[in-house]
């Protein structure tokens, strides 16, 4: 049986499933133009805007690292480890210039903190957060642009 690729529980509608050029999906308020990620749905967070109308828009695929760290220990549940035994991974907060947002995400496997700096250019890719018998549960991750390679 083939496994299906599905967004991880809680992240449905947060990104496109485009294999080559995926993008995070945010809300853009049709009245004031401000963005929200994750999509806010029914209210604009701008205190000076009472709008409840939003357009779903793809966010910039590239951004610059605002800060970064790693997880040397396995995070507790509800995190689901993708494999037996903990393999440390990086987490980056990435600034998207046009949207004025900083978005967290894991960094793709193989990247260490030594490969990152405040200002490093990264792009969004889709990766498997974890798999079960029927599904690959997908999540966005950040990948340094200079590193290239498969995501």
């Amino acid at each position, binding site marked *: 049986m083939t496994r299906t690729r599905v967004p991880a529980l*809680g992240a449905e509608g947060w990104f496109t499933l485009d294999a080559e050029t995926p993008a995070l999906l945010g809300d853009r308020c049709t009245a*004031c133009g401000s963005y929200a990620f994750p999509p806010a749905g029914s209210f604009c967070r701008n205190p000076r805007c009472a709008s409840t109308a939003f357009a779903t828009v793809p966010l910039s695929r590239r951004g610059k690292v605002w800060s970064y760290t790693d997880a*040397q220990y396995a995070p507790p549940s509800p995190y689901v480890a993708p494999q037996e035994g903990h393999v440390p991974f990086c987490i980056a907060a990435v600034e998207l210039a046009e*949207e*004025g*947002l900083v978005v*967290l995400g894991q960094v793709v496997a193989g990247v260490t*903190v030594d490969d990152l700096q*405040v200002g490093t250019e990264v792009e969004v890719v889709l990766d498997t957060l974890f798999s079960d018998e029927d599904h690959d549960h997908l999540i966005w991750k950040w990948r340094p642009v200079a590193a290239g390679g498969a995501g």
Partner: protein
Amino acid sequence: MAVDEVAVLGVGMHPWGKWGRSFVEYGVAAANAALADAGIEWTDVGFVSGADTMRNGYPGYVSGATFAQALGWTGCPVASSYAACASGATAMEAARTRILAGLCDVALVVGADTTPKGFLAPNAGDRPTDPDWLRFRLLGATNPTYFALAARRRMDLYGATDADFAHVKVKNSRNGLANPNARYRKEVTEDEVLASPMVADPLRLLEICATSDGGAAVVLTSLAYARRHAVDPVRIAGISTVTPTYPNTIIDLPDIATDSAAVLGAPERSFKASIAHAAYEQAGIGPDDLSVAEVYDLSTALELDWYEDIGLCKPGEAERLLRDGDTSLGGRIPVNPSGGLACFGEAVPAQAIAQVCEITWQLRGQATGRQVDDATVGVTANQGLFGHGSAVLLKR
């Protein structure tokens, strides 16, 4: 114009540790210590304000009633507050406003916690609409992840070093040696800090605060009541429990992204800088007037952020303050003379109250072995998840 003040007539704590008993026990012990310190009876209390714990079932969610029942029902009104790490300050604010409104003369504020071992994690069960569940599930982002993002940014922007961060721990561990309520009373060297395992680069195990059991309480009263019971009581001149101003452009627990600054630019002050500022505004007192500060060192590096955010120096100058010894005991403005979270570990609902206990002892000259000379004005500062933060300004 400065707001009216209330008095801190009594303070008390149950020592921090990993005692494994009910939080109610710690809270009652702290409450009785604060009542004894104030020299008043439990039956004199006109309002009980509890700070909630989220990990101890229903009694933790109705902490005001839980503590009132444990002390013995007297018919006095209760309230229970939850504001993450700022819960204790929110409970104090409920008491202050009630006193200033003339609804009671004496209020007892209590917070206590019993904590599990290891990383703080969300309650069990799938909750895909809860941001706290989502950050663990989707990103594996623990609390130290967020502390480390702040630490790394200091390094890349301001040139902070591993040694600077370790130095904060060394300073605080020394301060806590003489504190009978501290959980960790052992001097730690820079080498020991740097040799401890990396948790979230650049932060190591000894740089990240543990979770602890503990309890703290204060008795707040009107100034008129206090004058009948004490000579020159310590007073609260300001309590800040502000939320962020949109757009909050610094990533905070437990969020996956910041607000958007695309339409409105970042506010004049970051959320963290706005916290103490609001207390200063209420009191008509500024950072130059401070003798002492207790700030929320969830990590070593976060203590340095606080130096800037409570106005001790400009952004990027905290490392210099630390290196010059300005924030050590005997320095210009000692920070965390209690030993801070480095020596306590976090007992969430008790922590903001414990900060006020320490400043009260400092202002009374009763902080044996860790006393700041001639302390007259002190501030506390803390920040928790979901847009909570607090600062309390105290003076003699």
